[in-house]
């Protein structure tokens, strides 16, 4: 069979691979979803009647996009289940309800519904439930866990983590597991670097007896350790699923070569092959204060989209939807949004990551999905975490400072390697222009902090960086305004 022109050699190899499990290491912009969907489209026509493909995505939105792509490739949706782990497991709990210990009228508990437990306790419990197959008897939060579980039971609720845990219990029934294996002959999992131990256990049960697993992801983009994700699962793939082939996609079709070089340097010399010849621009801007930083960002955005009135207009290739402003902490968004608002620049702050995980459950979906009635473009403001999987021609990363990237504030400390990966994820969102900004003085959580630049900036070669001073070009006065003094 000829290689289709829209797949490169390594993508084509990944698409055609047969006979074993496969782990595809796919760096940013290497055509991960493209390859995955083509592989699915390649496999599905060979399925026997009644057989299906199970595709697990990281978010519900990603599931929707994958379905769209598969439809475009002419794949019959009847032979597919595409969804998050949560949506798949919830479906299992409903389909095999009588084999579970769940109350008849069980409902999914939304985080905001849960009362009587503080945030930290809930986070600890959640991490415990997503990282321990059997709850450790020495666990410090064991009592709180018990209280929480009986609170849920009393309400006939099941929380996000329990959806997976209950499904795992269900699959201990070998009859059910066998049924599923006969049905789902191929399993695809996206963003494998961010899966947790429970999800791994589910896969181990399902991907057996001839069922073949295709996992795709990038260990350098594992950023959900705080939620129980285990990047070592990625490295352990060949032990967990044997025999398994490991393939790598290295050709990057997203970023300008200079930006790719810069992000590679941050990851310690990692080399992806730049396939685009667009001219990249990496700007370093150090502002005096967080407000000045935000004003700089806002003025740059106005310039980039070519100005808003007759006096500041210039040619532009970009509009509002092409630009993202990223930051480590949601607390940074306030001052940024103020500055954008002041210039009248439309923006949206993307919802919290937790919401992006929303599983496909019609009963609960409606109330949380914003109805998009009109086509509206806005500048996107979001945390680095929320930016995962997205790409923008122009990306600003605010607060490139030594205690924000890596995060090291009182009571908030990120795992060092994971913080670096997070910064890498942010950098690799940019296609053409990347602005890394910082402030010398920053108001954060009611305190004034004196800041130094992030150590990551020093990892980028000087010749790739363009320094811009704090003097932004304020829009010139309207000549009309001068003439208005006429009378």
């Amino acid at each position, binding site marked *: 069979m000829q290689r289709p022109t829209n797949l490169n050699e390594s993508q084509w190899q990944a698409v055609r691979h047969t006979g074993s499990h496969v782990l595809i290491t796919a760096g940013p912009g290497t055509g991960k979803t493209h390859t995955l969907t083509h592989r699915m489209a390649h496999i599905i026509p060979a399925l026997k009647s009644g057989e299906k493909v199970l595709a697990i995505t990281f978010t519900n939105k990603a599931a929707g996009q994958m379905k769209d792509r598969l439809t475009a490739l002419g794949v019959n949706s009847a032979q597919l289940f595409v969804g998050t782990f949560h949506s798949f497991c919830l479906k299992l709990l409903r389909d095999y309800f009588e084999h579970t210990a769940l109350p008849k009228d069980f409902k999914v508990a939304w985080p905001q519904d849960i009362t009587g437990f503080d945030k930290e306790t809930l986070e600890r419990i959640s991490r415990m439930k997503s990282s321990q197959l059997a709850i450790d008897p020495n666990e410090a939060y064991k009592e709180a866990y018990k209280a929480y579980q009986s609170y849920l039971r009393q309400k006939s609720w099941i929380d996000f983590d329990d959806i997976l845990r209950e499904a795992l219990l269900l699959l201990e029934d070998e009859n059910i597991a066998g049924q599923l294996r006969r049905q789902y002959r191929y399993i695809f999992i996206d963003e494998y670097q961010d899966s947790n131990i429970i999800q791994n256990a589910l896969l181990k049960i399902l991907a057996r007896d001839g069922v073949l697993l295709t996992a795709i992801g990038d260990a350098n983009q594992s950023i959900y350790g705080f939620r129980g994700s285990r990047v070592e699962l990625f490295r352990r793939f060949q032990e967990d699923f044997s025999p398994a082939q490991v393939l790598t996609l290295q050709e990057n079709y997203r970023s300008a070569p200079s930006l790719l070089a810069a992000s590679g340097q941050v990851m310690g010399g990692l080399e992806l092959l730049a396939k685009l010849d667009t001219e990249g621009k990496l700007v370093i801007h150090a502002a005096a204060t967080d407000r000045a930083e935000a004003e700089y960002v806002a003025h740059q955005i106005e310039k980039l*989209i*070519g*100005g*808003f*009135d*007759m*006096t500041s*207009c210039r*040619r*532009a*290739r*970009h*509009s*509002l*939807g*092409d630009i993202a402003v990223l930051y480590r902490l949601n607390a940074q968004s306030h001052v940024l949004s103020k500055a954008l*608002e*002041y*210039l*009248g*620049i*439309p923006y949206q702050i993307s919802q919290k990551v937790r919401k992006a995980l929303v599983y496909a459950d019609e009963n609960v979906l409606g109330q949380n999905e914003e109805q998009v009635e*009109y*086509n*509206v*473009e*806005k500048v996107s403001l979001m945390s680095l975490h929320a930016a995962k999987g997205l790409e923008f021609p122009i990306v600003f990363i605010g607060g490139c400072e030594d205690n924000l990237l890596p995060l090291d504030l009182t009571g908030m400390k990120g795992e060092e390697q994971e913080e670096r990966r997070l910064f890498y994820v942010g950098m690799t969102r940019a296609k053409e222009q990347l602005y890394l900004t910082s402030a010398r003085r920053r108001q954060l959580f009611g305190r004034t902090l004196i800041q130094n630049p992030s150590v990551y900036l020093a990892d980028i070669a000087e010749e790739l960086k363009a320094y811009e001073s704090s003097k932004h070009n304020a829009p010139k*006065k*309207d*000549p*009309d*305004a001068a*003439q*208005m*003094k*006429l*009378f």
Partner: protein
Amino acid sequence: MKFIADLHVHSKYSRATAKNSDLENLYLWAQYKGIHVVGTGDCVHPQWFKELQEKLEPAEEGLFKLKEKYAKPINVQIPKSCRGDVRFMLSVEISNIYKRHDKVRKVHNLIFSPSFEAARKIQKKLGDIGNIASDGRPILGLDSYDLLRLTLEADAKNLFVPAHIWTPWFSAFGSMGGFDSMTDAFGDLTGHIFAVETGLSSDPPMNWRLKELDDFILISNSDAHSPAKLGREANIFDTDFSYDGIYQALSDKKDKGLVSTLEFFPEEGKYHFDGHRVCQVRWNPKETIQHKGVCSVCGKPVTVGVMSRVEILADRPEGEKSKRWRPFKNIVPLPELIAEAKDVGAAGKAVQEAYMNILAQLGNEFTILLECPVEDIRRVAGDVLAEGINRMRQGKVEIAAGYDGEFGTIKIFKPGERRRIDKQMALF
């Protein structure tokens, strides 16, 4: 009844506008100019909306007047010769910035509403989409098509008018951020647009050169950023003095309610010709073609002005009229004429004093520009201004065309001519 309307204006809540762009000053200047219906501008801006509700009261159907208590202190400032009724019509301009077919589009659009309820509905919908409080002319990442849909959904009697359609940077036909046809921009909803605004840099004959524009009636407004700039362009109606009258005159292709328009000399507009202001390169369309659109000073593409853009899109020869054509008159604002007659800057105090003096004796500015016998003007304002107005009426003015954001400059008198005119007249 016959009346003059200037429907595109901005309040003090828009960027780069005069601080006195408020209802009282619009009311005042409308009378100086001789305008009877003024667009409020900015009517979805929360504070301006509040002010409009507070200071206006319903007059004729869909039109509003300044409440007596706000009008009274202004009335005493207005010479008796200029006093007249002023009505407001709810209006707003939206700056749409979005990508379509992979190109950045920047299109300004006007919306008119027949009632506060209708305007409120638009305000609510736009408020849900973006920020309407930072700028009286809100910037929205909304497709023009969607704005039109939203406008019609809010109230069937809302009017949607693409603004200054030729302006390079911010308009439906603009060379920099526009489309090649109205249907490209507005698709299946194009039929819900009845009128387009020609803008300062184009006059009706330039617009007649596009057959597509036969489906629209051409209107002209000042886009004033300060009350003193009202009436740079305007529309003369002879129809029912109401929103419905205006709506009918624009929407019904058989209606003759829009009688004519008053126009800037298009060369005076900021974007008539092509070029680079900074490089001081000013080209007519032919010169631009000769240079392949590339500036001879900086080597970058020049800002393509209205004249060139019309030439590119035109599908009808010069000199032919469109189906819905209306007569028009070119005018020069009276303060500019006074300045030209006195050979001083238009912003000076001498001009201001002369302006008020002439208005007090002869009536509002439009009356003076359009109707006053030259003899009367001569008696009150002297020979040079009278001759200046006479020449303006005959179109005998010389204009260095505007380009790349620079207004064109008008010359009515040659060097030494003013003295000669004064002298000649003294002989009689």
